[in-house]
């Protein structure tokens, strides 16, 4: 177990480092950072001055090592445009996205588990096919469009929920619903296939032979086993949800980390973009490890090793 943990820690660190280098190279690949800041009409001297101020005139490896060294100490540099520390920008924006992501994964679990179980219990029937089609349709809906439609329906026509911002908790509801669509199809399918396998397993047959009620068989025996991979995968799905928050935050004008990144990309503010990419990579690696760990802890067959 310890070896397994150390191995995935090392691998995760390597993955983050690679992503970091790649994002750094990408952001410096275009030589126009200083022009972006100075504006298109700036004189060559002004541009050179900005380049010097920001250290952009040094060789790339030097810039990278400098940045990575500071980042390791928690100093992610200053935003080119906001004149604020990147770390403080991130710490003000991230909690919003995190709350949104947690709510979305919660909705996804609440929707996907019962639907998946239902589809499995009525496997091969019209109900099963209908639920499968709903999952496919959920996969086909573009998030930004769904957001706009929900704004029209629930925000304008019914006036139930706010259409932008997260000043109150109600503001989180619509964007979280949209984000939950990222995870629902995958979790639904996984629940269904897990339940189908579980219901055919020997221990369920034994439970039936003992004369247990159908409800007890489904919930206590089959579901417990089918739920393990779903729980494990929900951590990875949370990573995808957070990564997909950009679009939803722009639609609902929520100033979370995705919105910050989108704004920064559009203005060429690369210290912020790099930091956000690094943050997402860290989160993804962390959640993947968490998912493997949960899978191992929940499954006694794996736990022993």
């Amino acid at each position: 177990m310890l070896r397994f943990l150390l191995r995935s820690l090392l691998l995760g660190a390597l993955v983050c480092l690679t992503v970091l280098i790649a994002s750094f190279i990408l952001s410096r690949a275009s030589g126009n950072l200083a022009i972006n800041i100075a504006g298109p009409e700036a004189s060559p001297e002004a541009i050179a001055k900005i380049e010097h101020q920001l250290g952009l005139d040094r060789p790339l490896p030097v810039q990278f090592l400098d940045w990575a060294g500071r980042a390791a100490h928690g100093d992610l540099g200053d935003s080119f445009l906001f004149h604020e520390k990147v770390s403080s920008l991130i710490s003000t924006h991230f909690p919003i996205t995190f709350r949104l992501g947690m709510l979305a994964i919660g909705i996804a679990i609440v929707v996907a588990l019962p639907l998946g179980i239902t589809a499995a219990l009525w496997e091969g029937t019209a109900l099963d096919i209908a639920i499968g089609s709903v999952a496919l349709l959920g996969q086909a809906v573009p998030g930004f469009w769904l957001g706009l439609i929900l704004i029209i329906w629930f925000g304008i026509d019914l006036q139930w929920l706010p259409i932008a911002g997260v000043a109150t908790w109600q503001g989180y509801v619509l964007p979280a619903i949209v984000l939950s669509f990222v995870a629902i199809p995958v979790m639904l399918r996984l629940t269904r296939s897990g339940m189908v396998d579980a219901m055919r397993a020997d221990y369920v047959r034994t439970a039936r032979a003992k004369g247990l009620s159908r409800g007890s068989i489904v919930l206590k025996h089959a579901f417990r086993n089918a739920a393990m991979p779903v729980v494990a995968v929900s951590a990875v799905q949370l990573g995808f949800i957070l990564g997909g928050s950009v679009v939803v935050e722009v639609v609902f004008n929520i100033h979370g980390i995705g919105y910050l990144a989108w704004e920064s990309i559009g203005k060429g503010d690369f210290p912020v973009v790099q930091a956000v990419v690094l943050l997402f990579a860290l989160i993804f690696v962390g959640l993947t490890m968490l998912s493997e760990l949960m899978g191992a802890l929940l499954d006694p067959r794996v736990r022993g090793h």
Partner: protein
Amino acid sequence: MSWTRRLPLLIGGFIVTLAVLIAIFGPLLAPHDPFTQDLGHRFTPPAWLPGGSSLHPFGTDQLGRDYLSRLLLGVRISLEIGLTTVVLSGLIGTSLGVIGGYFGGWIDSVVLFIISCRLAIPLILVALTVVFLVGSSLTVVMLTIGLLLWERFAVVARSATRQVITLDYVAAAWCAGCSRLRVILGEVLPNIVHHLIVVATIDMAIAILLAAALSFLGLGVPPPMPSLGLMIAEAKDYMFFTPWVIEIPGIVLCVLAFGINLFGDGLRDALGADRGR
């Protein structure tokens, strides 16, 4: 196979065929030029709403351009994006996956590592950054998505290859003295291709939706090209007064992605392939 199980393949196949026909013949069917503006006739409602006319069956947009003509071209652009990206990502992902699965050992570890790195990259942020840096055009969008969206191909090709190389006919090919390349191209690839086709349909739908999202965020296919995502983005300022301006292109996008997914699902059942993740 019962007809209910064949239904996804039939409906999905119908939608995909229709989309392909629109992509090929759409410009011939279009009642108007998709780029001609007519500011005197902005926001003509579609024919089924009050005030609509059969002259513009799907209405006109904020610049008076015929919506149907733009939608027809939009479907073509979406399919173009979907096909190009899938070919590119399929080449990258399949090569990586087959190499990892075939050779195993440290080569496989490297492949797994590359896949992990790709998964750790926030797809949409990196795509936005690339398009911002390089400048938005249809080609840039297709290349960017194609270069990023290969991980499912790699994962599926790798696991399918690992299964195939344990089978007798691969051993027979080795015994017959076939070269590695010959075994990979002649024995492995033909026997994993049905998995890859299913992955291709999933990724194609994802690529189309991703391109639409990029357009929506302002870093996708540039105007005045009528990509479906851009049509929604341009019309969203008017959606409170005329909701159909975003409803129509959104529904077209949904049906297209749904049809491709359904087709893939039907193919998977018919071919007995895995779905990947």
